[in-house]
């Protein structure tokens, strides 16, 4: 029992280089910033979040504030804009790695308040990225690839070791997201009851499909869509094994049949590639806004910092990349 407790304490006390979490920080910050800028470009800040008396869509109003900021400072379009701008500045600061923890926390609080003002417009991806920002706020995600590192150490990159547990919890969050969504897919179109027709049906939904493909055209690809429905279910329900696979990979030096099988089967790599393909496919075929990009923003957490560095080093020595770099230097 004590051995298990000590093991638990040691597991959450691990430290690692900050590259992976920094990439997650940048990707999440960029995704949120792009979404906020889109909201502003479409002229939707006041309509979405101002009280109905000031041309907001509602349901918030002078009489029904719906969030703490409105209760404390009064419901108004100015308050909505203040929260929105605070969100934009925080997202930008978190992206560049300036006051990372504070900006991530401000982002969570602002996003939470906006969610209360317009619950229908706050989607699952907003909740997912809030959860991720909460973890980033408790981490040293600004230790490297950040303005903080540049200001403190004179370099954008740093060798400082940071706590690993926030990255582990982001991985767990991804696993829970997919596993729960996969297990709850019990509607008949996700089963043999309706012949695994879910993706066929979803691609015909006018509000979500990107292309107006007729049922006749989609019908030509029906077997492919059925297979893709099955793969989606396997991918989502298999997510529960991802933390264990990561652990087996990380501890492969300890040997054992299970570790050897996990490494040889490339199960983890297959799952990651399937996920990336799944989300890119969604981005191409459907109009889901930041959903695919927000999920992909968390995928770097699946990569160990050392592996990320090896990949970056290899990418920088690719023949095409090297010749381009040399040509640019000659200029």
């Amino acid at each position, binding site marked *: 029992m004590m051995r298990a407790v000590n093991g638990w304490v040691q597991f959450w006390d691990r430290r690692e280089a900050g590259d992976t979490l920094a990439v997650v920080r940048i990707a999440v910050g960029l995704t949120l910033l792009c979404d906020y800028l889109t909201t502003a470009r479409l002229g939707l800040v006041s309509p979405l979040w101002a009280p109905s008396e000031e041309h907001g869509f509602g349901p918030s109003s002078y009489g029904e504030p719906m969030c703490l900021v409105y209760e404390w400072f009064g419901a108004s379009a100015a308050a909505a804009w203040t929260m929105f701008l605070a969100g934009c500045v925080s997202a930008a600061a978190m992206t560049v790695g300036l006051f990372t923890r504070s900006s991530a926390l401000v982002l969570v609080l602002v996003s*939470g308040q906006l969610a209360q003002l317009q619950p229908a417009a706050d989607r699952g991806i907003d*909740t997912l990225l809030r959860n991720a920002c909460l973890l980033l706020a408790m981490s040293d995600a600004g230790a490297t690839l950040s303005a903080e590192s540049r200001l403190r150490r004179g370099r954008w990159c740093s060798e400082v070791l940071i706590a690993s547990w926030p990255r582990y919890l982001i991985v767990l969050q991804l696993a829970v997201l997919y596993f*729960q*969504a996969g297990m709850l897919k019990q509607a008949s179109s996700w089963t043999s009851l309706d012949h695994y027709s879910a993706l066929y049906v979803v691609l015909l939904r*006018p509000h979500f499909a990107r292309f*107006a493909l007729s049922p006749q055209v989609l019908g030509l690809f*029906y077997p492919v869509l059925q297979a893709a429905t099955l793969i989606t279910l396997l991918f989502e329900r298999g997510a529960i094994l991802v933390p264990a696979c990561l652990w087996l990979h990380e501890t492969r030096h300890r040997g054992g049949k299970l570790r050897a099988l996990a490494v040889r089967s490339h199960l983890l790599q297959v799952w990651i590639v399937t996920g990336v393909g799944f989300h890119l496919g969604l981005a191409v075929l459907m109009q889901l806004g930041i959903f695919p990009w927000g999920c992909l923003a968390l995928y770097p957490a699946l990569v160990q910092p050392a592996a990320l560095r090896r990949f970056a080093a290899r990418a920088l020595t690719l023949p095409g990349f090297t010749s381009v770099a040399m040509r640019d230097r000659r200029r």
Partner: protein
Amino acid sequence: MRTPTHYTHDAHDARRASSESHALVRLGARCWPALRATLIAFALIVQALLAVPNRILQERDIARAEYEDFIVGVEHVLHGLGAERDRSTLNTSLMRTNAAIVEIRNELLAPVEPLFRLLGNDQQWSLFLSANRDCYRLVLDGQDAGTAEYHTLYRALELDAAGLAPLLTYRRVRALYNAGEQHGPSRAYDGLASHVSRELFGSYPDLSRVRLRIEHLRVGDVGEPLESMGLQYELVRTRATP
């Protein structure tokens, strides 16, 4: 002026205070990993509770084909265990169990609910959970002054004469009007109608009325065209009262 004795006592106190604070810092450094692991364990338990589905089974859920498939499986298992139950008793037991689980979940989470509400933290995930064959399409019509006929300005994915697609397909706006099998558009649908109408009245001086409707469609067999089940949730705005 301080005497050497006073100076000696002050220095001794200062050294003792310094070593006590160092000891506290060392104690904190030793205890922090265990405290952090405990906090993480607590957070994981709470998040696991948040992830327990919080939807209560309704009678209409019992009537669905997938529930029938599930309950037949349960009956087989009970038969194998020699504990058969009639369908009505099974349904009642399952609904009561589901309601009890949701109630316990909500009771356990009640102390931390205000914090999660502030942070917007949740673990309820649905990625196209109910890809059923009913879907909906927003239709926007305009009526010019002095005419009785409406002409369509926007039909989701098919027509966008007024350039409204970037606005109406934006995820936060779509969520306001996208009806579902178990719910109509959101409370903000009315406000959205006013906003879109104001935009259209500003762009089209001849327009006197704007009408929003949601068309209910049904996906048929493979290759069959979508069947229209009628138009619902109609809202009309006039230039005088957008």
